[in-house]
């Protein structure tokens, strides 16, 4: 259902503080753990607010059936999936149309960052499993998947970092949570490659005028850059620091 109906007046108080205590330009707490699944070639676990998401990478690997292989590069495949217990109401485990769409945009958000031409005739599988969802799960999943791809040693131009901005109670806010997504006016999830400022994911649900759109876009970009720092630290912690280092966002 559209975002026009909700009474969102209680979502931001007069001091500009949101229902969960955040400022309008503040991210939820984020933790990233790297390399925690034994079998996967690369993996990462992200907590992004109440989102708990596991990402794993298998590959580069042989393609079945063979005729779906490409002669000049690897085939990137993604599955975004929600565990049945991850949502308020039990989710049917069969993939919904929403999950199929998010799987597609996740793949298209990650693909520009990868040097797939280095792995001809192979496939790279990315699996994103939402164990608990809380608004913004596609962004959190993309950020985790990019770290898992790095952990798997896939050659990449840059990490992909994702974050949403939106409009709640008439104001542009950073990082929309579940309640704000349902009762707010707009959600603008974005993914970027930070060093080159290239946008690899953009979706918009809900109404923004041109000024709000520009502001939301710029806030989302700055959110992505904070996520990027945490992704980098998690990878450094994994490879150069103590294992399974847990990093928390400081603002």
């Amino acid at each position: 259902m559209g975002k026009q109906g909700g009474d969102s007046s209680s979502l931001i108080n007069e001091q500009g503080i949101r229902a969960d205590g955040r400022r309008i330009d503040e991210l939820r707490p984020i933790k990233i753990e790297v390399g925690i699944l034994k079998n996967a070639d690369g993996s990462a676990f992200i907590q992004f607010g109440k989102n708990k998401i596991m990402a794993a990478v298998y590959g580069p690997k042989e393609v079945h059936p063979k005729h779906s292989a490409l002669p000049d590069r690897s085939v990137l495949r993604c599955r975004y999936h929600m565990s049945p217990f991850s949502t308020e109401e039990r989710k049917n485990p069969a993939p919904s149309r929403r999950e199929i769409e998010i799987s597609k945009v996740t793949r298209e958000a990650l693909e520009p960052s990868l040097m797939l031409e280095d792995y001809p005739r192979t496939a790279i599988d990315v699996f994103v499993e939402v164990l608990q969802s809380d608004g913004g799960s596609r962004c959190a999943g993309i950020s985790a998947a990019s770290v898992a791809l790095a952990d798997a040693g896939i050659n990449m131009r840059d990490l992909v970092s994702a974050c949403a901005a939106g409009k709640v109670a008439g104001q542009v806010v950073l990082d929309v949570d579940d309640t704000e997504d349902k009762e707010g006016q707009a959600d603008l999830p974005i993914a970027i490659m930070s060093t080159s400022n290239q946008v690899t994911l953009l979706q918009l649900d809900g109404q923004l005028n041109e000024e709000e759109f520009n502001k939301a876009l710029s806030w989302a970009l700055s959110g992505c850059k904070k996520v990027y720092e945490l992704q980098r630290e998690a990878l450094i912690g994994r490879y150069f620091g103590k294992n399974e280092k847990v990093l928390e966002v400081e603002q």
Partner: protein
Amino acid sequence: MSAVKKIFVVEQLRRVQMSDLLARGTRLDGRGLSDFRELTITTNVIEKAEGSCRVKLGNTELIAGVKVNLGTPFPDTPDKGLLVVSAEVLPLASPYAEPGPPDENTIELARVADRGIRESGMIDVSKLVLVEGKHVYAVFVDVSILNVDGNLFDATSYAVVSSLMTAKIPKYVLDDKGQPSKTDEMVSLPIQTIPVSVTQARIGDHLIVDPTSEEEALMESRITLVSDDKGNLCAGQKGMPGSLTTDQVLQAASTAKLKGEEIRSIIKKAVYNG
């Protein structure tokens, strides 16, 4: 030279040709970068449907039909009617279309068209309620794509919007037991705004609107933005495994608003004078 290499070379040559043209501000079919192809909308082509139209956008051709019946609202939105948008790329439409359940491309297509309608508030779904939590109108818009020549996102959106605008649905009243009963009166849907989708393709450093199939084969990324009567953006979707700079995103937004107004007047003319 191997077959694969040959294809690369041909594609490379086309890319260079396209790039030269775009740098000169023009395209293979002579259009400017922000020109749409001819858009023809013929309404009420399916008499058995509550609303319908045939849309031709260049050689892209499709038919949308609206069917309305009574249904039960979702438990979490007891005060809202149902609106379901579906699309099928018929196997008639292209040598690459296969019969069968919708693939990810078609699912994305229908979901983005749906998003534009829903998020713009085009239909006031709160007016589609007969008895809260029990009886609501269920509005189905189905799009059958007959010929594919690029920019299915916009063509599908225009077909959905136009068929909803033309729809006349039977008015129901409640009988003395509180059961809905159909009357002979036909009413329009509660239209609040006309959302217009504008899709742009990035090829190299250029953004072009309304790409053909040939242009889509060369595009690196795609961005669809939907704007409403007041110029608000209300839905968006970046697609394809390429990226956009933030400047390109802002440029796309402003083009979407501008071209949106142009297309909106074509839709209005087709529906109200059609």
